[in-house]
C-alpha cells in the first residue's frame, strides 16, 4: 500500500497531478483510488488530493499513514506533515518553502525548484509535471518511462499536445 | 331540432359544478386536437385540482395527473421522452401563477415547445374558494372574507410576467358567449398548431366562472367574469410570433 498526498494552492494543478499519478498506477496494473478536496476549497484556496496504490483491493480511499507528500506551498507542508509515516518522502517547491522551514526529522526531504524549472522549460504551468518527474527519480512508485507514458495518455485524452510537458517531466527527473 | 353530438374525444360530461368553465375548456381542447388531426398522439397533463376531473371518464386522451402546480414540468418531461407527441398542460390560475410560478416562468424563458392552457377563475377552486394571485382587489373569497386587500396583495397578470420572455404565443380569451368562445377556440388552436410546427412555448389563458366558490348563480358569475375580471385581465393576443 502506498499513500500519496498532493497539496498546494487552488489552480496549481494539484488535482490533475494526482490524476496523472493515479493513471500511472492503474496502468501498472495496481488498484488505485484518487480522492480530492472539492467545493469552495477549489476557489483559489488550498487544494489537495489523496492517491492510493495497492496490489490488493483498496478498502478506504482516505489516507492515514502517508508515504509521499508533495507540497507545493508552505501551508500545505504544515497541514499534512503530521500524517506522514516515519521514513516518508516529502517533495517541496524550494522556490516557496524557505530552506529553514521546520520539517520533521524522520522523513526524507527532496527540494525541487519546480516553478523555476518550468519557467526555464518555457512551460510555466508545468510545475506539477516537474514534481512528478522528481517523484519518479526519488521514489520507486513509478519509473520516468512509466510516468511519461501516463502523462502522454492523460493529455492525449484531453486533446492537449504540448511537447514542453514532457520536457518538464524530464527536467524534474534530473533533479 | 339540431343533432347534439359529443366531440370525438369527449366520452362523457364531467363532474364539474354547474356553470364551471373547465368543462367548456376541455371540450374546446378536445375539438381542437381532433380538428388538427393530432388527437392520436396527444398527451394531456392535468393539475390535481378541478381540471383533473377531465380524467374521470371525460377526455379520451392519454393523460397524466400532475402534482398541484407541476403540470408544466410534467408535460415538459413527457414531451422530452416523446418528442413526436403533442403535449399540453391544463391547469388553473393558482397552479400556474402561484405554486407553479417558477416552473411557468422558466419554461417560457426556455421557450420549450409545448402548449399550456390556464383556466383563470380568480379563485382557488378545489380547496374551496380561497384567494388567488388573480383574485381582484376587493373580491371576497374564503381567505379574504372582507375582500382582497389591494395594498397587501397584488393582482398577477401573466402578460406582465412572461410576455418579454421567450413566448411564441400568449393570448387571453373568455367563454362568455358563442362569439367569444369561438375566438378562444381559435387561440387554443393556434397554441397547438405552434407546437405541431415546433415553434415553441404557447400559453392561452381562459377567463372562466367559478360560481360555486364565488357564491353566485352561474349567470351572475358569467357576467362578473365578463364585466369585472376583464378590467384587470384584458382579452387579446399579446405575443404572436
Amino acid at each position, binding site marked *: 500500500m502506498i499513500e500519496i498526498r498532493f497539496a498546494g494552492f487552488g489552480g496549481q494543478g494539484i488535482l490533475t497531478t494526482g*490524476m496523472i499519478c493515479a493513471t500511472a498506477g492503474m496502468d501498472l496494473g495496481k488498484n488505485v483510488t484518487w*480522492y480530492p478536496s472539492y*467545493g469552495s476549497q477549489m476557489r483559489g484556496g488550498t487544494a489537495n488530493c489523496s492517491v492510493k496504490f495497492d496490489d490488493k483491493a483498496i*478498502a478506504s480511499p482516505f489516507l492515514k499513514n502517508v508515504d509521499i507528500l508533495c507540497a507545493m506551498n508552505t501551508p500545505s507542508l504544515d497541514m499534512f506533515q503530521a500524517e506522514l509515516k516515519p521514513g516518508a518522502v516529502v517533495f517541496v517547491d524550494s522556490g516557496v518553502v524557505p530552506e529553514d522551514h521546520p520539517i520533521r526529522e524522520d522523513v526524507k526531504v527532496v527540494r525541487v525548484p519546480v516553478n523555476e524549472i518550468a519557467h526555464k522549460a518555457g512551460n510555466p504551468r508545468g510545475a506539477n509535471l516537474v514534481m512528478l518527474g522528481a517523484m519518479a527519480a526519488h521514489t520507486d512508485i513509478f519509473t520516468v518511462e512509466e510516468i511519461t507514458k501516463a502523462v502522454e495518455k492523460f493529455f492525449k485524452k484531453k486533446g492537449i499536445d504540448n511537447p514542453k510537458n514532457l520536457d518538464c517531466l524530464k527536467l524534474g527527473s534530473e533533479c | 331540432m339540431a343533432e347534439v353530438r359529443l366531440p370525438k374525444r369527449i366520452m362523457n360530461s364531467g363532474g364539474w359544478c354547474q356553470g364551471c368553465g373547465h368543462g367548456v375548456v376541455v371540450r374546446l381542447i378536445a375539438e381542437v386536437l381532433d380538428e388538427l388531426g393530432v388527437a392520436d398522439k396527444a398527451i394531456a397533463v392535468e393539475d390535481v385540482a378541478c381540471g383533473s376531473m377531465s380524467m374521470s371518464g371525460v377526455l379520451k*386522451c392519454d393523460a397524466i395527473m400532475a402534482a398541484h402546480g*407541476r403540470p408544466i414540468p410534467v408535460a415538459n418531461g413527457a414531451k422530452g421522452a416523446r418528442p413526436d407527441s403533442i403535449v399540453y398542460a391544463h391547469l388553473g390560475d393558482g397552479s400556474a401563477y402561484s405554486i407553479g410560478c417558477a416552473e411557468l416562468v422558466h419554461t417560457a424563458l426556455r421557450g420549450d415547445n409545448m402548449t399550456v392552457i390556464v383556466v383563470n377563475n380568480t379563485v382557488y377552486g378545489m380547496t374551496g374558494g380561497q384567494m388567488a394571485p388573480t383574485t381582484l382587489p376587493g373580491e371576497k373569497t374564503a381567505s379574504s372574507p372582507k375582500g382582497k386587500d389591494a395594498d397587501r396583495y397584488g393582482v398577477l397578470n401573466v402578460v406582465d410576467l412572461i410576455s418579454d420572455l421567450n413566448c411564441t404565443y400568449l393570448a387571453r380569451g373568455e367563454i362568455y358567449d358563442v362569439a367569444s368562445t369561438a375566438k378562444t377556440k381559435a387561440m387554443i388552436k393556434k397554441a397547438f398548431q405552434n407546437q405541431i410546427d415546433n415553434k415553441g412555448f404557447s400559453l392561452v389563458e381562459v377567463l372562466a366562472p367559478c360560481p360555486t366558490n364565488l357564491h353566485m348563480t352561474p349567470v351572475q358569475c358569467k357576467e362578473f367574469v365578463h364585466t369585472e375580471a376583464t378590467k384587470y385581465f384584458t382579452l387579446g393576443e399579446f405575443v404572436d410570433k
Partner: protein
Amino acid sequence: MAEKVLMKGNEALAEAALRAGSRFYSGYPITPQTEILEYLSTRMAEVGGFFVQAESELCGINMVFGAAAAGARAFTTSSGPGYSLKQEGISYLAANDLPAVIIDVMRIGSGLGDIFMGQGDYWQLTRGGGHGDYRTIVLAPNSVQENVEMVQKAFDLAEQYLHPVIIASDAGIGQMMEPVELPDFKEHDVNKFDWAVRGCKENENPRYCQNIYYNMWDEEYPLVKEYGDYPTYLTKKYATIEENEQRWESYQVEDAEVVLVAYGSSSRVAKDTVDTARAQGFKLGLIRPITLWPFPKKAFAEAKAAKAFCTVEVNILGQMGDDVRLATEGKFPVGFAGNFFAVPDPDDIIATAKALLK
C-alpha cells in the same frame, strides 16, 4: 472485457445511466453531485437524449415524473437539501406506480449542513421521506464500479416493481476516482410498457396515469381486480420487495465479537478497521447493507458470536442505529462510531467497539 478507465464516481454513474438506456435527465446544481449534471450537459446530446438544467429540484423531479409516465428510463440527481425538495415528486412516483431512478450524492447535516463528505440522509432516504404510505428501494454503492453497476440495477428494479429506486451515493463515492469497467450500451424502448402514455386512438381506452388512490374503489381497475383492493396490493408489494431484495456483504462476521454495520464510503473504512482489529487480536466483523431499504435483516443471522453491534456513519446522530436495533430485535447493545467533517478513524472505531463489550 472492456478496458478499465479511471473515472470519477459521479461521471461514471452518469455514463452508466446512459448505457442502461436512459435518455432523459433533468437536474440542478448542488455540491457534491454537480459533475453528473455537467457531464450529461454535453454527453446526453451525443447519445440523442434529453437533457435539461431545471430551474429547481422540484422542476427536475417533476420532469422525471412526466418522462417516466411516458415510458422513458428517466433519472435525476441531487444531494441532501435538494433531495428534500425532490420528495414531493418521489411520493407522486410511488403513488402512480412509476419507475424512475433518483440519485442522492449525500453530504452532511440538516439545513444547509455543509458540502463535505457525509451520510446525512439515511432517514430521509429509507423512511419514505415525502408524504404518505410509501418507501423506496435504496441501493448504496461503495465504489466507482458499484456506482456503475447499481445504476443499471436501479433501472431494472424500478421497472420490475414499478417503483422509484434511489441510489444513496455519497461525496466519497461521487468525488473519488477509481479504475472502472463500463458496461455495453443497452437500448430502452419507450413503448416497452403498455401503461406508458403516448396518445390513444379513437377506438382505444385512454391511458390515465394518475394517483392510484382515486381508483381504489373501482372494481374494474386492474390492480383492484387482481388484489381485491389497493391496500392489499400495496402491502403485498412492499412485503415482496422486503423479502426478495435484501442485499448485503458480510466480512468476517461469523466469529466476530462485535459486528460493525456500515454502508457506502464508511463501509470501506470499516473494512480496513476489521483487518486492523483482527491483526491486534480483536475479532471485529462487518455487515455492509447494500440495500438500505429493504434493510438486510437477514444478514444478522450470520452474526452468531456477536455480543454487540456498532454502526459506522458519517453523521452526528447515528441514523442507521434504529434499523440495527430492529434487525437484532433489541437484544444487543448497538453503538455508534461516527464522525462528521471526516470519515471515522479506524482506531476510534476500534475503541468504540471495544467499549461496547464492557
